[in-house]
């Protein structure tokens, strides 16, 4: 691509990368590697594995709730400088995660946050009217369900442990992983059991 073909913003990024390479701070290969990792290796599947393990192994779940960082290390997930706090949905209690000041997010178990999580509409309203926000995601909670919002303003990162849905009794860990989607670990969705796989 010639320089003329670059948009202004692409040109700025290119200039910045060149400058940092020149300074010896980074190499372009390292940049490639980070991009590759986030596009291929680090994503919500990691979190889904954590959740499915917690659903099938009560002792792991206990350790996960007591010290999230240590528990996910057992699954090979490392999180330098941050602490994972796992919050559990219970009958009558729903958890929702937001970062009103920027967009803190447990990227080491969920990958990079979706655009809506970083957007002003979500950041502004999740703390003020969580039920209205949940409705926009199609989640309608009973009036009696308590809603706990976690505004992640420091070095803690929150992962919602959704309630294991009925109809999944006897499923294997691998089968369970498939129904834990990203939004259910942020709190903006509930795990769905697809009709076809219900016996």
């Amino acid at each position, binding site marked *: 691509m010639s320089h003329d073909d670059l948009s202004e*913003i*692409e040109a*700025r*990024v290119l200039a*910045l*990368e060149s*400058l*940092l390479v020149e*300074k010896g*701070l*980074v190499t372009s290969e*390292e*940049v490639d*590697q*980070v*991009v590759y990792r*986030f*596009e291929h290796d680090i*994503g919500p599947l990691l979190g889904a594995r954590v959740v499915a393990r917690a659903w099938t192994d009560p002792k792991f779940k206990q350790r996960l709730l007591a010290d999230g960082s240590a528990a996910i290390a057992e699954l090979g997930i490392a999180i330098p400088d941050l*602490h994972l*706090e796992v919050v559990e949905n219970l009958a009558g209690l729903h958890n929702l995660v937001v970062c*009103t*000041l*920027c*967009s803190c997010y447990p990227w080491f178990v969920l*990958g*990079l946050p*979706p*655009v*809506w999580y*970083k*957007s*002003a*509409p*979500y*950041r*502004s*309203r999740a*703390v*003020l009217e*969580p*039920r209205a*926000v949940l409705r*926009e*995601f199609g989640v309608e909670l009973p*009036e*009696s*369900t*308590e*809603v*706990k*919002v*976690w*505004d*992640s*303003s*420091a*070095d*803690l990162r929150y992962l919602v442990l959704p309630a294991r849905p009925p109809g999944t009794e006897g499923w294997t860990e691998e089968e369970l992983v498939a129904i834990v989607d990203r939004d259910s670990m942020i709190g903006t969705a509930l795990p769905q059991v697809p009709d076809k796989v219900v016996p």
Partner: protein
Amino acid sequence: MNGVHDLGGQRGHGPILIEKHEPVFQTAWEGRVYALMGLARRRGLFNLDEMRRTIEGMAPAEYLRASYYERWLTALEKLVEEKSGWTGPEPPPPLARAEPLPRFKVRDKVRARNRHPRGHTRLPRYARGKQGVVELVHGPFLLPDLNAHGLGRRPEPVYTVRFTSQELWGDDGRAGESTSIDLWESYLVGTRFRT
């Protein structure tokens, strides 16, 4: 700083636009900006609090207009300029004090200070002056208010403090809703009573 980035409790930003199956990066340059920010930070060019302080320093209209990674790009350009005299990683300056013991414990009633500092802070405006209950005790972590400005590395306990919706939003609060916020110890004052 009381800036537009402090969005908690605002309205008027329109509906939440939910895109199904969005790519990790919307464009190739976003990926490079993400990686460059992380790498430059890990090499010691700046710290996370400086990064946030710089993003928050954008002109408010520009902050709101820009996409997430455009903000990162703008901040990264600014940080690189600000640190143009940087010659390599140095050992971080010593901590301003030994690891402190937490003053508050779980179930303590605390009040978030009503503060409006000129500099960076992680105490959201909607919680200031409000009373809550300590739910979790963590840390210590470096106080961002100093670290963001190169003013010292002061470790402090961090507390997850739970505020009821009625305490935060008054007449528009709702029973059965609460928000828990992670707050450094110096953002809090104790109240006499425990729950």
